[in-house]
């Protein structure tokens, strides 16, 4: 069998356990653990005057009730502000349990621990909290007026304000470039809130070993290493006494990168205090009102352009709703601001955002992380330009593309990682050519006219994006070959369905020349690998993939060195194929990698027959040098890290054909086409799966999903009944094609793929509906009722 597995659609190795019910998700663990539940604020903004727990004390099976007053130092402090930024002048984070003021419906106020979750909920229902209701601040523009404050000490509700300006080559600022342009347009765009909503909510399960004074915590997280450090710091434990494991995680999509959640601090703390295992598995309502949302923005756009549609100046002002707290800083609006230009080279650009507090659930990255809003803005702008000039929409885009010979291309801004925004590679004209061919762009007007003749209303739309992927600072990989010939790979970042066990094994098998089934991969377990950042920003394949490849190369080098000794050959004449190190051109002269692993570890004791080869009387090592040569370590293993100078930039283009019902205003996607470029593909089957899932989430964001708050700050649709995640019946067939423009920045030539699918969908669907209806579409999502109201307002 071949060991060249990079690029092959290898079937996933995680599937077997998941299709037989043997996966282990958070709530599958700790069957005997006590259960936690929380009393959460029913008000969007209120002062906690008194908490009366007396009625709850009679609940059979109650173990403990905690309020903020009960928490010790450090545990009781506000949660960390994870990503400070100089522009975030008024960052605020929540207390793990409300201290005095609650700032959104769902904020935890009291923690209850009981024998099981039913009883914990019974007790929680009996706890009476006396609130003094304060004026809720809801709605981004309302909040920006600043007439009522979310935090008393944050004037105008403005958490952050940031301006980035890129003058034109002639040194003109955006304002002047726009004023001087032959054509100008100004308009406003709205994007509503959605959320990650993985099907498994958050969850934490903690075991305190009182004898060993050590803590093991399982969390459904996208970053176990960082949760570990946060817990050690909060609980005052030495880092080596805390281990955090991400078990099977039922989806993340961003929400599980935030940490430590209040529950991630409180559950381990309670487990230590009680000397009992404690578990909290978030329920669906909690997930809606107590985790995180994203997307909500209002954008004001001004653009100047010439007769061919070249953008000469673009000025975008963004109001970003970040909810009640800013634990994750201002990453989302920074990404919107910096990724807005997409594949385009434009004259001058100015972007300004204000990140605003509201009495709603906090806003942190959800797959795409600010990019769907950015692409909505840029692509709506392109369509407006085309409409204004009477030009083909694809042609206007092509006129503004960065050309293949212009890479690396410096957009002149600072990206979310604090580094220059320089695109590494891409081929945008070819992507567009492929897309137009796939969807039948040039033939569409005839199709549309023919449908119209039969009373049907069709429209076509497209959208282009560039996505910074694989942000640093680093990831690592550890690779160990044991004396049975097995290869054990570990990396610190976590997995939520991306197939890391498979793709990292493909990389290791290819690099080491071993069969795939000899390789096992562990992710997200601090017992195996303690240094990592996490899984987000389409970075896992780029970061850990390259780190593992580099670690494998170290192992390979060492294996060849040891095998060369054993075979009395030159390492440069050796190759590894199917787990055998052999002399090129002389298949007889070979040694199994398993034996090399034995020889790598000079032993005193023979544990088994194989190990006897490496003991002191076996003659394995020459007498004239120490058994472990200088500069070497025992064992056939290697560890390496990958830390890039800057991000890689993947890209893609989508197109859709939609049909709108002239009577019911129903909107149906008839075709959806994707051209995607994430550099070299490790496993095309998995990349396609990522795209499919992203597009489906994008369809949700374009046509179905929104978080509906009323004026009191109540989330009106905190259930899957009313938060409309698409079913199979709502997602069209998705056609995909790949373009592979390798990244010059990393050894494997890869770019990230995790978020790509979701990014342009709202822009594409808006473009297509606008084409079908002839009405400007300037907000997303759009429902049939909204389309009907738009028609009415336009007098149709």
């Amino acid at each position, binding site marked *: 069998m071949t060991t060249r597995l990079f690029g092959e659609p290898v*079937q*996933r190795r*995680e*599937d*077997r356990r*998941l*299709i*037989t*019910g*043997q*996966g*282990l*998700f958070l*709530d*599958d663990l700790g*069957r005997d653990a006590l259960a936690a539940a929380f009393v959460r604020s029913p008000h969007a903004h209120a002062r906690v005057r008194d908490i009366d727990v007396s009625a709850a004390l009679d609940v*059979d*099976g109650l173990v403990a009730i905690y309020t903020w007053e009960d928490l010790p130092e450090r545990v009781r402090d506000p949660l960390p502000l994870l990503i400070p930024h100089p522009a975030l002048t008024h960052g605020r984070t929540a207390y793990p349990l409300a201290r005095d003021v609650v700032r959104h419906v769902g904020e935890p106020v009291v923690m209850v621990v009981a024998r*099981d979750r*039913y009883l914990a909920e019974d007790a929680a229902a009996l706890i009476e909290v006396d609130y003094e209701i304060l004026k809720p601040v809801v709605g981004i523009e309302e909040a920006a007026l600043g007439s009522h404050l979310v935090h008393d000490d944050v004037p105008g509700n403005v958490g952050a304000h940031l301006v980035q300006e890129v003058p034109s080559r002639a040194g003109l600022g955006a304002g002047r470039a726009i004023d001087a342009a032959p054509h100008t347009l100004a308009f406003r765009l709205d994007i509503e809130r959605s959320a990650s*909503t*993985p*099907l*498994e909510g958050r969850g934490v399960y903690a075991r305190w070993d009182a004898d060993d004074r050590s803590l093991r915590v399982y969390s459904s997280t996208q970053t176990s290493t960082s949760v570990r450090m946060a817990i050690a710091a909060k609980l005052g434990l030495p880092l080596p006494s805390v281990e955090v494991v991400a078990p*099977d*995680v*039922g*989806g993340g*999509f961003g929400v599980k990168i935030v940490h430590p959640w209040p529950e991630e601090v409180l559950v381990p703390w309670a487990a230590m205090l009680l000397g009992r295992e404690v578990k909290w598995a978030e*329920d*669906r309502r909690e997930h809606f009102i107590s985790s995180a949302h994203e997307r909500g923005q209002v954008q004001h756009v001004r653009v100047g352009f010439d007769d061919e549609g070249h953008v000469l100046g673009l000025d975008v002002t963004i109001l970003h709703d970040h909810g009640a707290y800013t634990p994750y800083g201002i990453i989302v609006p920074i990404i919107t601001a910096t990724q807005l230009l997409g594949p385009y080279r434009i004259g001058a650009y100015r972007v300004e955002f204000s990140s605003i507090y509201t009495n709603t659930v906090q806003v942190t990255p959800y797959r795409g992380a600010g990019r769907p809003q950015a692409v909505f803005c840029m692509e709506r702008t392109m369509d407006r330009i085309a409409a204004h000039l009477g030009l083909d929409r694809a042609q206007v885009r092509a006129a503004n593309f960065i050309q293949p010979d212009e890479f690396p291309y410096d957009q002149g801004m600072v990206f979310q990682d604090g580094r220059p925004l320089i695109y590494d590679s891409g081929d945008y004209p070819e992507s567009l050519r492929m897309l137009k061919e796939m969807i039948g762009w040039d033939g569409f007007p005839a199709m549309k006219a023919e449908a119209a003749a039969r009373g049907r209303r069709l429209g076509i739309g497209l959208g282009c994006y560039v996505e910074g992927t694989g942000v640093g600072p680093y990831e690592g990989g550890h690779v160990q070959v044991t004396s049975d010939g097995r290869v054990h790979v570990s990396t610190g970042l976590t997995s*939520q*369905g*991306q*197939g890391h066990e498979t793709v990292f094994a493909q990389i290791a098998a290819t690099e080491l020349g071993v069969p795939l089934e000899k390789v096992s991969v562990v992710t997200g377990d601090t017992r195996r690998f303690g240094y990592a950042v996490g899984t987000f920003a389409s970075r896992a394949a780029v970061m850990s993939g390259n780190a593992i490849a580099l670690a494998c190369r170290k192992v390979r080098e060492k294996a060849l060195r040891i095998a060369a000794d054993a075979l009395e050959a030159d390492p440069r004449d050796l190759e590894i194929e199917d787990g055998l190190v052999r002399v090129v051109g002389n298949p007889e002269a070979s040694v199994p990698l398993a034996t090399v692993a034995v020889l790598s570890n000079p032993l005193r004791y023979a544990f088994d027959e194989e190990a006897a080869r490496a003991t002191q009387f076996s003659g394995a090592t020459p007498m004239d040098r120490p058994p472990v040569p200088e500069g070497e370590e025992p064992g056939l293993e290697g560890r390496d890290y990958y830390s890039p100078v800057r991000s890689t930039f993947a890209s893609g283009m989508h197109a859709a054909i939609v049909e709108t019902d002239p009577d019911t205003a129903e909107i149906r996607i008839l075709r959806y086409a994707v051209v995607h470029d994430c550099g070299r593909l490790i496993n095309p*089957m*998995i990349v*396609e*799966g*990522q795209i*499919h*899932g*992203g*597009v*489906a*989430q994008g369809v949700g964001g374009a046509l179905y999903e929104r978080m509906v708050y009323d004026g009191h700050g109540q989330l009106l649709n905190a*259930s*899957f*009944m009313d938060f409309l*995640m698409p*079913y*199979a*019946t709502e*997602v069209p*067939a*998705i056609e995909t094609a790949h373009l592979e423009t390798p990244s010059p920045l990393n050894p494997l030539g890869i770019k990230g793929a995790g978020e790509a*699918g979701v990014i342009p969908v709202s822009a594409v669907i808006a473009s297509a509906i606008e084409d079908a209806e002839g009405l400007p579409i300037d907000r997303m999502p759009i429902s049939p009722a909204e389309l009907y109201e738009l028609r009415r307002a336009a007098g149709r």
Partner: protein
Amino acid sequence: MGEALHEIALTVNGVVREVRVPGRRLLSDCLRHDLGLTGTHVGCEHGVCGCCTVLLDGEPVRSCLTFAVTAGGHEITTVEGLAGPEGELSPVQRAFSECHALQCGFCTPGFLCTVTALLRENPAPTGEQVVEGISGNLCRCTGYQNIVKAVHRAAELAAEADATPARTGEHA
């Protein structure tokens, strides 16, 4: 004062299991926490997501919308019971893996149970029937593309298995 407990016997994956539960114990919690069959997942507890779907007397139902006491005396098949006695995967399980119809795997047990029943009733469904058949199960990862593919593939595999009587396993 504790709640009244009810003694019930459930036949789960062919094995009679006796358990004492309060009236309000959801079947999902009973399977997961009382019987240790954690393959059945809980995604919403209001009957929308379909993660908790199990077969009750062969019919797919939401175990989060069923009290364990009501299921007493009935037969239940969970994802743990879909493979054959020697662990050989059913056509539906094989097809899901082959077609990459799962990513995080959390919704998968519900889909597997739903599709197993769907193909038993309709061994060769049309595309429309497949989509309708899985329309009550949410998946946040796959965009359903490969799940639809897998249902068709499972129908093929089951038909092949039927045509080869020597082979055992789940068939329609």
